[in-house]
């Protein structure tokens, strides 16, 4: 009887050991599942980021192509017609067929010629791919010069760029953000000075924009400002970080940090 009792206990213990082994197996299984889930989520996030980058690339390409098409059309079509109109008006003045309206003809010719100059400039700016051709320092310098030429406010620009070449979309987005910031600072903040600095190293791009305008309450404007949201969205699309600081009466400060290894 004692022998049977001992055998039964050994048998039960053996089965409980099997059960414990099974539970351990299930726990290992759950750990493995968690690990696989995290890997899966990371992979999904990576695919999503790559997809967003591709979309951005396509968007920029389409934008560039459309602008170049419009630029060519202005130059080849509208430009030619205006040149012809200018020639006809000059001919009218030269032939002196209606001396009483010569002054008006001169004025019309002058207006047409001015329009031609402006159209050529517009066509040139649309067809020129200055973003692809220039580095970020030159591009930002151009933007600063444009604002300085208007004499509305003074832009101080400092660049710490090493030889690192930035991808097209990064340059494009940085230029658009700077343009948007300038527009906001001049139009809404009424600033007198804007300070721009860019630091490009092998790992990241750090862009700092600052104005001495009237500033704003970020908690109110952040939720409604389409321009600010666009800047933030564009920065995040290329994996960057967007830090905006502003208080009423103290101006606005915007810092943008874009890691280079992530999208290059």
């Amino acid at each position: 009887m004692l022998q049977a009792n001992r055998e039964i206990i050994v048998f039960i213990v053996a089965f409980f050991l099997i059960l414990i082994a099974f539970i351990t197996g299930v726990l290992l299984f759950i750990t493995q599942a968690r690990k696989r889930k995290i890997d899966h989520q990371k992979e999904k996030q990576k695919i999503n980021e790559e997809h967003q980058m591709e979309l951005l690339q396509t968007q920029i390409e389409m934008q560039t192509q459309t602008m170049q098409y419009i630029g060519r059309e202005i130059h080849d079509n509208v430009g030619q017609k205006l040149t012809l109109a200018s020639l006809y008006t000059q001919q009218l003045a030269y032939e002196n067929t209606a001396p009483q309206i010569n002054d008006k003809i001169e004025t019309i010719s002058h207006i047409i010629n001015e329009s031609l100059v402006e159209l050529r400039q517009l066509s040139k700016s649309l067809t020129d791919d200055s973003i692809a051709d220039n580095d970020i320092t030159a591009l930002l310098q151009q933007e600063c010069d444009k604002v300085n030429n208007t004499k509305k406010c003074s832009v101080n620009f400092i660049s710490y760029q090493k030889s690192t070449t930035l991808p097209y979309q990064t340059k494009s987005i940085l230029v658009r953000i700077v343009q948007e910031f300038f527009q906001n600072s001049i139009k809404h903040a009424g600033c007198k000075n804007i300070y721009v600095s860019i630091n490009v190293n092998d790992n990241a791009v750090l862009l700092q924009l600052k104005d001495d305008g009237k500033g704003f309450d970020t908690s109110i404007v952040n939720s409604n400002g389409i321009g600010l949201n666009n800047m933030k969205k564009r920065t995040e699309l290329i994996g960057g970080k967007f830090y905006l600081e502003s208080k009423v009466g103290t101006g606005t400060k915007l810092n943008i940090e874009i890691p280079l290894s992530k999208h290059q």
Partner: protein
Amino acid sequence: MEGLACITGFLCWARLYPKFWRIFPIYLLIIFCCEFAGWYMTNNAIKGSKLMYQYFVIPLEFLFMYFLYFKNLPKYFSKITVGLSLVYIASFFAEKLLLKNVKWLWMSVSYSVGCLVLFILATIYFLSIHQSEKIITYKKEIFFWVTLGMVLFYVGTFPYYAMSGVLYKANEGLYNTYSWISIILNYIMYSFFITGFLCYRQTEK
């Protein structure tokens, strides 16, 4: 607990897909009715409760579980599942017809074979989902919870059910303790069934 699992199954009825899962609440209802009948027969000293379990309830439980494995395991395991089910059926008939008078057997052969087959199929199931993408969403699989509950119950209570007569005679104290363990494992199994139904419902949303 069985009744609760059965009610949960019927509440989730419309969401159960593939449709063979709709047999599961019906199966739980049948088992619940049998358990109730067994309890009623024991309390009223009506004979036949043991026979009902031996010839209907236990074989039905094993065969239904094998059916679930047949439906849930990848296709290339179908032959193994059918083969192992036949092994169980053979052991059942062998025990009832050939080993009826053998005295050296101190445990139920068919029950032991049934549990062993279940354990093998559960191991195959866990290994197969470990290798597949289903590992990511294992919590949302009803069968994961069903298998987990079944293995815990059938392996944990195997010594108790397979040799209850011998155990009772050899050590009554241990037998009584084990009765409580088997009740707890039973509750755990049906709780896992309920979890399976509820988790599955959440995925469908």
